[in-house]
């Protein structure tokens, strides 16, 4: 019996993809992220939830060093991707971001054709040897973004001409085109209508089979639908991190419970 439990547990557990220890983030003098430690698993959807301004987006942006673009932001602590510290001096953020992709809140396709939007990442990272290769990558990415059927006849139309939901799926396809290992999504559905949201959520579920997905969301229902692990942030602290079902049915910390029942946030 013990063996069986162990095997079951082994099947459930995935490798640790990102391991964050004692992360502090300062915006100038403001201490935005206070001593956060979390282990993100591979092939899993991890949700970051919490009230507005609690630091979830900030922490997310640390994972692919997007905070580097903000001058007054200072990050301390360790964040390891596959055992390597991403803030190591030898690490070029450009290479990091090929491995850790990001999808933003408001869909931001480039003012280029759909084809060029997807092809941009592979081109700059030199992932395709020739045009046929590139065509292949574009098609695969668009399929993975669950948008291929809708745009396969108009690959050279501008990306900005699509509807909101299509644009976001385009951005997701663009993000996977660089063959990342981790996919970060910052409130990907907040600018979309319910039908588009449903499409994207379905897509996220498919994506977790190949990538580690971290999604920041405002909607607890979405977190419950989509993720396997959930982290609850509050005022810059990571309050609780556990399986999604446990967080939503039997949270340990009273703050978590207050948030879930709607008393705060």
């Amino acid at each position: 019996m013990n063996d069986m439990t162990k095997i079951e547990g082994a099947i459930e557990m995935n490798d640790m993809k990102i391991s964050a220890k004692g992360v502090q983030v300062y915006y100038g003098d403001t201490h935005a992220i206070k001593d956060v430690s979390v282990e993100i698993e591979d092939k899993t959807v991890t949700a970051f939830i919490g009230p507005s301004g609690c630091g979830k987006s900030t922490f997310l942006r640390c994972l692919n060093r997007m905070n580097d673009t903000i001058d007054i932001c200072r990050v301390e602590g360790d964040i390891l991707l596959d055992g390597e510290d991403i803030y190591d001096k030898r690490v070029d953020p450009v290479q990091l971001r090929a491995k850790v992709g990001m999808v933003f809140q408001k869909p931001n396709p480039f003012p280029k054709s759909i084809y060029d939007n997807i092809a941009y990442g592979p081109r700059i990272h030199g992932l395709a040897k020739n045009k046929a290769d590139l065509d292949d990558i574009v098609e695969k990415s668009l399929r993975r973004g669950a948008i291929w059927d809708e745009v396969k006849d108009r690959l050279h139309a501008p990306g900005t001409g699509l509807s909101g939901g299509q644009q976001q799926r385009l951005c997701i396809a663009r993000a996977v085109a660089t063959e990342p290992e981790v996919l970060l999504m910052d409130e990907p559905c907040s600018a979309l209508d319910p039908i588009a949201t449903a499409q994207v959520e379905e897509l996220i579920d498919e994506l977790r089979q190949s990538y580690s997905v971290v999604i920041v969301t405002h909607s607890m229902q979405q977190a419950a639908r989509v993720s396997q692990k959930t982290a609850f942030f509050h005022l810059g602290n990571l309050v609780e991190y556990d399986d999604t079902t446990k967080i939503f049915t039997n949270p340990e910390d009273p703050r978590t419970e207050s948030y879930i029942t709607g008393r705060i946030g």
Partner: protein
Amino acid sequence: MSAFWLLIILLAFAAVGFVLGRGRALASVNGERRRLHSLPNYYGSNVAMLAFVPAVLVLAVWVVVQPFVINSSVSNHIPAELYQTGGELNLIMSDVRRVADGLDLAVKGGMLTTDEASNIDNDATDLRALLGEVGIALGSEIHPSVLSAAQVMRTQIATGNLYRSIVLLVIAAAGFFVAIRMTSGEFRARNMVERGIRGLLIAAASIAILTTIGIVLSLIFNTLEFFRLYPAKDFFTLLEWAPSFSGRGGASSLGLLPLLWGTLYISVVALLVAVPIGLFSAIYLAEYAGPKTRSIAKPMLEVLAGIPTIVYGLFALLTIGPMLLSVFGDNGFGWMQGQRSVMTAGLVMGIMLIPFVSSLSDDIINAVPQAMRDGSYGLGATQSETVRQVVLPAALPGIVGAVLLATSRALGETMIVVMGAGAAARLDLNPFEAMTTVTAKIVSQLTGDSDFASPEALVAFALGMTLFILTLGLNVLALYIVRKYREQYE
């Protein structure tokens, strides 16, 4: 009565009207200010306005129209055998005017009585010397018809002025009384006055239209006059610019093309300097530079924009010219003959245009939304890749517009080319040769000694028309491109 004094009288009318109107308004409500619709001053202003404004408008029109009417009427008094062309008639008429002015001055100065002036006989008195004493210089003896025409003119002017004074005073008085009668407690004086002020504001705004109309008319009339004297086909197709100094057309070749070539060549050189430097500076300042660098470098580049073009012209003539000559002239490569050349002017013009291109591009690049850059960084692109492949294509319509505007500025530039590019009109490919431009020739033809009605002088207007149309076309094109292609990215 002169127009000046008329104006003073009208102003006095207005002032009196103000006081009376105000008083009457207050009187009509027995001094209780609260029962008046508007503040008392508005009632006063109303009367002043109605007394002054219609009269002044009529005065303005009269002052412009009267000389024309008198001119054409007096022209009929000149016997036809004295002149053959319109130009000669104009000369005679101007003599007539000067004699008339001179006689008036003599009367004012006490040298003649009014009677003597009206009945002056050219044989008895030396009129020319007399006029010389009051400051009117005449080139030759006065023809009797000219003298009689001058007398006719004097009478007509006097009559005209008399009628003017009467009409104006009547209008002013009428306005005055109408306004006074309107004044009572319920009368909405403020609305009336505000309508008047609104009219003034509209008039001020219309000055922009008037200016454009003025430019277009002054260019068109003189250009048409020019084409009457010189074949338009030659102007547009001749490859040579060689005005003869004898005036009256004849041996001049006045071809636009060599000048246009000089203008375009110099502008191209200037853009080759300004666009790369300006664009890259803008990219660096917008994307890479920290706030401290930006706060120092940007104002310094802006200083280049504030320097007057005469300074650049001198710089080209006295600094850059000799510098280039020492390198490319006979002691160096031997390509350059003199200090003035396309290169000299083009280089300096490029320096002048750098801040133009740079600050326009800076605005445009900053307008590209940050979300687009974030998307690119998120994919792992370097900053230069993002700028080259995402930001610049998005900003392209705006940048093209900026370059077109810079071109338009380069085409219209005068001082730098006058001083730095020389006066020789040439169709040459060597950028170290001196080549003059449309603008330089406009200046030289209009400030030279040519007689004003000759084609050599009038050609400047045709050149001006060409320039105006070119620059306007470029500006419209720039606006169109920006407006049309900008939709694509939001």
